């Protein structure tokens, strides 16, 4: 949704490697990027509410199992690394497209998507094993709170992956040139946000009992 279309001449990547950020707005920043940041600011409250709900409820279960019984910290650590590095590859993709390297961008987008998928696979594994260990969604209050919090995060990641692959398809069709760099960048913001939410969850939910 870039504004570039409105410029009569196609952006010249040489002159303006960032692609053309709209100069028509009062603040000089593009509507789309501002909108994404507003959305992320709002999402802070969403995850804030979910995390505090989890904190309040995790130790209140009347029946087991509790967090200590099921958590598998080594595995979750790997998941954290995976997501962390997906942020790196995402940033690389954004950098690449800003320089006009479409192919490199595409490569990193695919890599990011694959890492995201690996993360989701880890989550599916984690959930399945928890259920097998006796912690269902309705088993106790910890279960409800845990699955809801991490599930919301997982949904954010999954939606991100679907869009990532959408970007890849666009790129394959030649529609993701440097003039659309901002699209990639805006998507990147979303992806990094999902990563920082996980940074919080990893510490607050998993590492601090």
């Amino acid at each position: 949704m870039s504004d570039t279309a409105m410029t009569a001449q196609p952006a010249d990547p040489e002159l303006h490697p960032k692609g053309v950020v709209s100069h028509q707005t009062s603040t000089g920043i593009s509507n789309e990027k501002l909108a994404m940041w507003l959305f992320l600011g709002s999402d802070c409250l969403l995850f804030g509410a979910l995390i505090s709900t989890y904190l309040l409820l995790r130790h209140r279960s009347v029946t087991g199992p509790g967090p200590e019984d099921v958590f598998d910290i080594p595995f979750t650590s790997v998941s954290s690394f995976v997501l962390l590095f997906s942020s790196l590859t995402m940033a690389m993709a954004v950098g690449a497209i800003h320089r006009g390297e479409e192919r490199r961008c595409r490569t990193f987008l695919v890599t990011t998507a694959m890492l995201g998928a690996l993360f989701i696979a880890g989550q599916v594994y984690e959930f399945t094993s928890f259920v097998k260990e006796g912690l269902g969604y309705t088993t106790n209050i910890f279960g409800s709170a845990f699955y809801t919090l991490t599930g919301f995060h997982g949904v954010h990641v999954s939606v991100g992956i679907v869009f990532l692959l959408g970007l890849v398809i666009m790129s394959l069709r030649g529609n993701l040139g440097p003039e659309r760099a901002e699209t990639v960048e805006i998507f990147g913001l979303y992806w990094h946000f999902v990563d920082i939410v996980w940074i919080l969850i990893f510490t607050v939910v998993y590492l601090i009992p």
Partner: protein
Amino acid sequence: MSVQTEPRGAAGPAEHDHEAHQKAHPTDRDYIVIAVVLGIITLLEVGTYFIEDASTTFLVATLFPMMIAKFLAVCGWFMHLRYDNPIFRRVFTFGLVLAIVVFVATLTSMEYWSDVYPRGM
């Protein structure tokens, strides 16, 4: 629209743009360096798990700074908050700080930090 005749709004878009260009965006190398640093911090974080009988106080004291450092690194570099237009930073920081303040107040009001708060399992 290629010819920009009217300066739009007050902020003088050109200035911002200028500013943005002065603080150059990080390079790929920067990204990799940051990722490695983040990885190391994460390793340290995971390390605390292997410390036996670590008290919660200790964990909070060690893990929170690391968490915040990671958080800021991703926001600042990967999300370009350090370089980009300050409006973004304000919007996001506002949401973040508001969330922290509001929910810490909620937890406090629900006696979460005190001994009264029941801990079942």
